[in-house]
Each structure stands twice: as structure tokens, then as C-alpha cells.
């Protein structure tokens, strides 16, 4: 996880396009300028970034389902629950599943867990649009390779 670059996911561990599921992992960094403000002397991962973890994981599922021909843009967060604080150095398991792939939109559910239990959950909805330019698609493909998305897709 590189908070300053908004890279919330470290690796995609499994993706199943038929079942419409994905599982990823991320490790919260021990040091980050984010923690200097959130909060001084009591560093915890901002809840909004936990939501972003779920959105990026679910977004990668939609990218796979749309065969990297369309870009999912976060449109709606539904019934988000942030159950406990997440401290620097925590390993996160993030999973998401498809609820409905509509025309120009997608509905997913996602959750975050640690080895001690559930941390967060939310319904995440996306607008699904053609890539605004080829460079953005290339960036998403490169990002997918960095996350190891190729390997789970072959499995």
C-alpha cells in the first residue's frame, strides 16, 4: 500500500470472472505522512481510505469482467460500516463480489478483514465508461500487472 500514490492494493490473490469474485491483500505502511495528521501520536488508517481499498479491489473485478475495455468510476457507497481501527503495519484481506453488471454501471459488495476479524464492509457502485484515452487504459493494464492480476486470471 502506497498511501501517497493512492495505491491501496498490493496484490490480487484470486479473481473468478465466472463467480464474479476477487480477493486482494494490502499491508498498511508503518510510516506515512498521512499518519502525521491522522492522528498525531495516535496513527490510524483513515476510514475513507478503507473505503478506497474496497473500491479499488471491486474496481479491478469490474475491469476484468469488462475485459479492460471500460473503466469503472466510483459512483456510490452504500451502507458502509467501519468496524474497528486499523493501525500502521496491519495486513488487510480485501474481497469483493459482483451483485449486478448493468448497462453502463456495476453494483458490487466488498469487505475488509484482518486476521482478527471483520474491519469494514460496503456496497460499492460504479459507472462503467469507455476509457477517456488510451493512456489511461495502458495505465490500468500496467497497474493490473503490478498487482499480479495476470496470474490469478490464468489460474
Amino acid at each position, binding site marked *: 500500500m502506497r498511501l501517497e500514490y493512492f495505491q491501496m492494493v498490493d496484490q490480487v490473490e484470486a479473481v473468478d470472472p465466472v463467480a464474479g469474485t476477487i480477493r486482494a491483500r494490502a499491508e498498511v505502511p508503518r510510516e506515512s505522512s498521512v499518519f502525521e495528521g491522522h492522528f498525531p501520536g495516535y496513527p490510524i488508517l483513515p476510514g475513507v481510505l478503507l473505503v478506497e481499498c474496497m473500491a479499488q479491489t471491486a474496481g479491478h473485478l469490474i475491469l476484468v469482467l469488462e475485459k479492460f475495455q471500460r473503466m469503472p468510476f466510483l*459512483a*456510490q457507497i452504500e451502507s458502509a460500516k467501519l468496524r474497528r481501527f486499523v493501525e500502521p503495519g496491519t495486513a488487510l484481506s480485501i474481497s469483493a463480489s459482483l451483485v*449486478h*453488471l*448493468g*448497462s*453502463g*454501471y456495476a*453494483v458490487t459488495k466488498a469487505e475488509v478483514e484482518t486476521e482478527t476479524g471483520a474491519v469494514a464492509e460496503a456496497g460499492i*457502485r460504479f459507472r462503467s465508461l469507455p476509457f477517456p484515452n488510451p493512456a489511461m487504459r495502458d495505465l490500468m493494464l500496467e497497474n493490473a500487472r503490478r498487482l499480479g492480476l495476470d496470474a490469478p486470471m490464468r489460474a
Partner: protein
Amino acid sequence: MQDTFNAVADIIAETCNIDRATIQPTSHTINDLGIDSLDFLDVTFAIDKRFAIKMPIEKWMQDINEGKGSVDDYFILSNLCARIDELRAAKPA
């Protein structure tokens, strides 16, 4: 058709917090009811779920942009409901 309209009107009233009595078959979803794109996404999802269909909104928008149809053809409720009925009828048994 009437059943479809009633179901769609109920969905719009609940999803968009619009007085059900103001929703008529002649209502335009955008011009009359003021449904914005995010609420329309919710309405579309609810209709897809309710009738187990996938409304081809993007195809409709493409048709409008290419002059193959007008906005009214798709987004006046009576016309929208007719298209929903077509999609329902086209579903495999």
C-alpha cells in the same frame, strides 16, 4: 403495461423520494421528474432487478446521439415501460 408502469412508478417514488401521485405515464424522467444521473443509476438497477432484465441504456443513448431515436422515445415513462415490456417478452422462457 399498467403493471409495469405501476412497478416503475413505485421504484421511482421510493428511490428518488418523489411523490408517487405526481408520476404519470406522460412524465418525462428528466424534464418532469428531475431525476439526475446518479438517481437514474439507482432506478435502472432497481428495474433490472425487479424484472430480471438488463436495460440497454448505453445502446439507447447511442441511438439518441446518432439520431435513431429521440430522448422522449426512451425516457417518457409510457415509452420506457413499453421498452421494458419488450425486454421482458424477449427473455428466454
